């Protein structure tokens, strides 16, 4: 799973919620942070590798390293800052242009739900964009933890479905040696960001 979006929208805070269910005031991410999180669904367990990218412009040249081949991409924007919404759309464009291969589930995440009183991007707008582009949509708050676990659960479900949908896709996956599934050697270790455990 890869988190994308402008700087200061709360990607790292979301990632921290996913990873440890805690909230910190984070400082701007340097480069890219990596975390893992195991999600239990009713019948399977998914191990998420979470790439929390830096929103700062100087790191954009390296970001494709992380979203290439990701199974889930979260496009995060700040509901109280319109420009971040525009920026999320640009990320979407970039994803669509180059790296989407049908198997990536994309979510549009309006973060900072706790700042609803300063809202600049309405729920309808977010929803509208999402349905127009065929994305999933949710509003969250990393600060209060609202909708975080729902988001994680539904991402897990969707990813599992999309994988289950074409089992053949499994053979295209690359495993890093830490995962217990059989190891398939390929040239690009970044091709997989999210894997199914036993």
């Amino acid at each position, binding site marked *: 799973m890869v988190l994308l979006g402008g700087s200061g929208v709360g990607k790292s805070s979301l990632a921290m919620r996913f990873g440890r269910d805690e909230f*910190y005031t984070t400082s*701007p991410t340097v480069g890219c*942070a990596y975390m893992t999180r195991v999600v239990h669904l009713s019948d399977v367990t998914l191990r998420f590798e979470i790439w929390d990218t830096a929103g700062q412009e100087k790191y954009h040249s390296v970001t494709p390293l992380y979203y290439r081949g990701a199974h889930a991409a979260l496009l995060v924007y700040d509901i109280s800052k319109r420009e971040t919404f525009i920026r999320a759309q640009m990320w979407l464009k970039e994803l669509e242009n180059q790296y989407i291969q049908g198997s990536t589930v994309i979510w549009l995440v309006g973060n900072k739900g706790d700042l609803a009183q300063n809202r600049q991007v309405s729920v309808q707008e977010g929803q509208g964009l999402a349905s127009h582009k065929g994305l999933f949509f949710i509003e969250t708050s990393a600060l209060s933890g609202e909708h975080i676990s729902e988001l994680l659960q539904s991402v897990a479900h969707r990813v599992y479905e999309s994988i289950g949908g074409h089992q053949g896709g499994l053979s295209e996956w690359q495993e890093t040696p830490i995962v217990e599934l059989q190891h398939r050697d390929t040239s690009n270790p970044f091709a997989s960001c999210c894997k199914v455990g036993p």
Partner: protein
Amino acid sequence: MVTHRAHHLFGTYSEGRDQPRPPSILIGRLNLSSEIPDVCCGIAPDVSAVHQSDWDGIMERDNHQEGEAQGVKICDPPSESNPLAHTLATSLSLLGNHMFPDQVERNDSGTANKEETVDSFISDITAEEPSLDAESHSNQVTKLDTEETENPECQNIASTQPTDGGTEDAADNDQSDSGEFVVTMLAKAKLEEQGLGVKGRSSPLLEAGTQECPAFITHREEDVTADSWRQHRKHVFVLSEAGKPIYSRYGSEEALSSTMGVMMALVSFVQSGDNIIRSVYSEEHTVVFLQKGPLVLVCVSSSRQSEQQLRGELLYVYYQIISMLTQASISRIFEHKKNYDLRRLLAGSEKILDGLLNLVDSDPSFLLAAVHCLPIASSLRDSLSQILQKAITPNLVFSILIAKNQLLTIVQEKNVIEDSRLEPADVHLLLNLIGASSAFQAGEIWTPICLPLFNPDCYFYAYISYLDPPECTVCLLLLSTDKEAFYAVAECKRKIEEAMVAQNSLSLIAKAHSYSVSQVGVSDLRHFMYKPFDVPDNYRQLTQFTSPEMEAPYSSEEEKMRLLDLYRYMHSRIHSTSRPLKLIYHVAERETLLAWVTSKFELYTCFSPLVTKACAITAITKLLRWIKKEEDRLFIRYPPKYSTTPNPSKSSRSGKSDQQDSTDNGFLSLL
């Protein structure tokens, strides 16, 4: 926006600027003679044109006009025999006006704030009333911002203002309703975003983001007109050659744009006479200039440090910027677009620069240009090195283990070490980066970083992870030349972690701590810093130094700083360019210091005030004997190596293999 006007002041600048106007000199409410008492200019020799008599003449003339020149624009070109000297004096005083204010000036300004005043003179705004309005308004906004840092509207304003051109000033001033104001700003922001987005470049993302403002704001909000702002011990400013603000240690860059414009005016004025401005001295402050490629760095300090030391610190700031963007990208960017706003790329990195400057002030490693390593038993250091040596992967070039912000050990790729070594300054930058990163929260970080002294044009990829969460004192740093090597390098970390668990290294490291000066067993000795020089047997080794904890009476922050200042003074005397010294015995008010430099070491010692010269010399002999005995514990003696280059014959220096990367690092496509 201010720059071209400022350049314009002198009529000597030929950068393609719009609005050609007759050369004019603007004199505002300046009380020249009392502004900067005792100004002497450290410009290189060729400035003989500026005679003392000219200066006096100028001062007189300006004084004379002071009474009637309130807010009046004087457009006559100077009629003195030396117009250059005149303009230099004017801009000096403009700079002085902001940096070193005097009572008269402030009273004069009344309620209007000074920044605004200087700005309005420069920008030819003769009407004074609207600025008042706008000022009170923006104060209000800033206050709001501090109360709720998450408030997006405020941030938006803060981030939008600088990008707007000069024409918007008037419009802003007219805004009375805050809601309307915000809406206007937002509309502008949006327009700009969209305008940028449709240019049809390969990546729309690279076009956006001029509006971005980091969510954390610390010193950035400071009121640059307040006395407290002026009283900071050391200001650091970074600007582009076009005069665009890039960084200011205190206060926001946009609020300081006119000050920076004046700085740039000074630089380019002196440059126009084929000279380089190096420093300006006033009674209270030293202003040091450093030009590095398209960047101009300025330090305004009241710390009594030598010009050389201050310039060294500016160089660190420059290197830190390079470490994030590389020298090649910076020069390419400015080659394409002279007035590029580099803050766009540095957004979010202010904290790294702030952190660096705080370290520079509080950590003597920067002064000594050497690294401090944590004293541990040499057997433990060797076993740690061996662990690092075994956990390798292709293209890994440096493995560094850090505890409590001090080096534990460092292992280098064999072929790298043949060609060069890691410079202390590069290590300092890495340590600072670790401090500023959120690695302690995130788990693992993978980031491009350039080591400017190793190779200023290429990126390494740094893997940063703490080995002992949640305490987060032991940090592993692995540098690779392959940007796709994350998983391979992360695997190295797991190997290292396992080996360290097996050997119980973490608990041994936890016990390690810096030593007390009392262990040396010399009664009057309070503190020391010892830096051995490279001697043949450890040739090409990382320059290190050792120093005990600062203990009573140097336990408070103020006292620590005072001792460091004394050391800085000793250092400046030893390394003075005009009269370098080998040995100084300095009796200060509350202590006695002795500094000694030989071909083998550099030593700074601090004794109690009652020590005699003879005592001090015996003490130093004892100290040197003790250091010799403890050498293996205090220093990394024989940095180990490993070989990871897949095909050593192909590239002897890893930097070369990375050359390709620097060209596709994406910055070019920004333009």
